[in-house]
């Protein structure tokens, strides 16, 4: 054995390569009598020591930068920019294909775990950022084409006579922007004075239909609330402030931003990952559209704690639980409403997915009785209303689904354009005259003045009150109102592509 062979073997042995007993013995024998090879072995060890004890490299945190680049690349693909067979398209196809099945599996696991008596089993929580959940939800929203699912609602503490209520809720969605929400009240009420909270709500944006009992304050005895015995049905061809049930499918409204969202972790649920997320009741309000549709519901404190369990693949909310806040303000609120003291660890509302059905819902489910507004194209609409509505030149992946002339009534815009992609939507209302008190206006006191890329200005408002993100633009001869489920930057990009120049001052 010569020195080259011995040192080659020594080097390999240092790196964990097995030489075999015979080769080991030959190498050891050579090294024992060879000062050059002993020096090589010593030097190699010194190099290793120097390499391994070197000061920690100053490694910059590039994660947000990289993820931001990935998102921009994805957004470019979404906007139709030329690209190869990129990940976004496969991501959308994946969601469309997998979401119903994935959600069904999770729902099955939820049901199973409830039956055996324990919520989560398996691995420890894994760290995940609220921003990551927001990104996941954002990616899922436009990819969803249809949904049919059922939930069980268990409400505690409506009144001493009705301490617990059980209701079934059925939710259906069909792109573009058609929703149906039905609530079937299964509660055994103590007397006929109580009106079950049976509700049917249909939305075929922008038209809506609502049938159900009007509300009744829970502090009053049921027979003191005659209106609750009346079921009213109303159709509206353009209800822009209607509560979208979209968050029961994918919580796109609640997770429009990471503000106020606290992620508890990702946990194993059977063979699925489930993200556990916490927010205040006010912050998670879009998760409870049924509370705003009439009927009688117990009151909730704005700071009550909402725990959400979301399937980490499809972002379907599989469980939504409300716990009383433990704050002093909550105690004062209980006193003010004559409520009993409610312990913070006992749920007061539990909404649990019970089944997800495959396949698209029947389109007839979304037909609105009496709706008479006909969808038009923009040119036909312009002929009817006498002016051409302002349209954005860029809408990303959103397609124009509806161009309507709402009936002439207080608060109605003169024209309304509805764009959609999956669960994502954008509504553009326009008034060629000066703005007055509109359903969306005047602009709220918390509106923020923003400068658009086009040079003009607009007034931006955060989601709330059943509406998504809003942007109002006043020009010399018209007023525009944009309302959307899209993130703020995408809304501003679309607004910047509109051929108008927003002026500073709102006109009276």
């Amino acid at each position, binding site marked *: 054995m010569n020195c080259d062979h011995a040192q080659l073997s020594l080097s390999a042995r240092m790196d964990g390569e097995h030489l075999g007993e015979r080769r080991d013995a030959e190498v050891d024998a050579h090294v024992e009598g060879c000062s050059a090879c002993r020096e090589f072995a010593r030097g190699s060890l010194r190099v290793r020591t120097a390499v391994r004890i070197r000061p920690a490299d100053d490694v910059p945190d590039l994660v947000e930068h990289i*993820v931001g680049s990935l998102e921009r690349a994805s957004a470019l693909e979404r906007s139709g920019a030329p690209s190869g067979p990129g990940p976004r398209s496969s991501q959308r196809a994946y969601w469309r294909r997998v979401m119903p099945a994935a959600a069904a599996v999770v729902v099955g696991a939820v049901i199973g775990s409830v039956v055996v008596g324990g919520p989560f089993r398996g691995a420890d929580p894994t760290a995940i950022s609220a921003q990551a959940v927001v990104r996941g939800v954002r990616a899922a929203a436009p990819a969803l084409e249809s949904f049919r699912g059922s939930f069980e609602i268990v409400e505690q503490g409506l009144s001493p006579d009705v301490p617990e209520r059980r209701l079934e809720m059925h939710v259906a969605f069909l792109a573009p922007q058609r929703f149906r929400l039905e609530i079937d009240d299964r509660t055994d009420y103590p007397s006929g004075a109580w009106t079950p909270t049976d509700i049917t709500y249909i939305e075929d944006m922008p038209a809506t239909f609502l049938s159900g009992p009007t509300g009744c304050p829970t502090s009053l005895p049921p027979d003191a609330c005659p209106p609750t015995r009346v079921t009213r049905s109303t159709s509206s061809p353009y209800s822009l402030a209607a509560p979208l049930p979209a968050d029961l499918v994918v919580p796109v409204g609640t997770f429009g931003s990471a503000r106020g969202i606290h992620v508890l972790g990702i946990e194993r649920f059977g063979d699925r990952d489930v993200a556990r997320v916490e927010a205040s009741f006010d912050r998670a309000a879009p998760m409870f559209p049924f509370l705003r549709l009439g009927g009688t519901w117990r009151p909730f404190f704005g700071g009550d704690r909402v725990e959400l369990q979301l399937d980490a693949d499809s972002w379907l909310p599989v469980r939504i639980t409300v716990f009383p806040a433990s704050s002093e303000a909550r105690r004062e609120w209980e006193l003010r409403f004559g409520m009993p003291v409610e312990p913070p660890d006992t749920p007061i509302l539990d909404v649990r997915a019970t089944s997800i059905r495959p396949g698209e819902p029947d389109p007839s489910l979304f037909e609105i009785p009496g709706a008479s507004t006909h969808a038009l194209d923009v040119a036909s609409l312009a002929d009817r209303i006498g002016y051409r509505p302002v349209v954005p030149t860029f809408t990303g992946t959103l397609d124009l689904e509806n161009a309507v002339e709402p009936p002439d009534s207080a608060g109605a815009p003169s024209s309304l354009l509805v764009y959609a992609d999956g669960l994502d939507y954008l509504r553009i209302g326009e008034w060629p005259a000066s703005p007055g008190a509109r359903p969306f206006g005047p602009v709220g006191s918390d509106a923020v003045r923003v400068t658009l890329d086009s040079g003009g200005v607009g007034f931006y408002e955060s989601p709330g009150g059943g509406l998504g993100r809003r942007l109002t633009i006043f020009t010399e001869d018209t007023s525009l109102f944009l309302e959307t489920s899209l993130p703020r930057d995408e809304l501003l990009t679309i607004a910047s592509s509109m051929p108008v120049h927003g002026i500073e001052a709102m006109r009276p």
Partner: protein
Amino acid sequence: MRDADPRTLDRARRGDLLAFEALVREYQADVYRFAWHLTRDRDLAADVTQDAFLRAFRFIHGFRGDRKFGSWLFSITRNCAMDSLRARRFPLLREGEREVEGSTTDATTQAVLDAALRSISTEHRETFLLVEVFGLSYLEAADVLAVAPGTVKSRMFRARRALCTAIAEDETREDWAR
């Protein structure tokens, strides 16, 4: 090098951006270090790291499970580094001198080691880094470098001999200077 969680990897392969972000978090430090060692330029290393993950995201749907994700990612990083250096016409190791930082008692040794690393060939240095610094096996390093495992073995030996020689020469100079 620890390999990626198979579930995360599977979700990332199916286009799940969230799962891919988890991979970015796990590997970005190693990818950046490797990129820095190849380019010796902090800004360039950051660019290479970003390019590597963008390329990985673009092609991960075609990533097969018959090799380690870390090896695959390092091979992409290496290609990005080479492309970047070629595009910018930077000579290798342009800014190596400034990397020795801090005030440890081993600063001199580190400086000598860095100088020695700069003195050996690119192929020997990248092989040495993959095996000695990043802990890849010969098989994994061979996968990254697209060479036979036997080539990794011989390159490691030659890299060590060159580094030992360089350090010994430096010590001899130091002794003469005293």
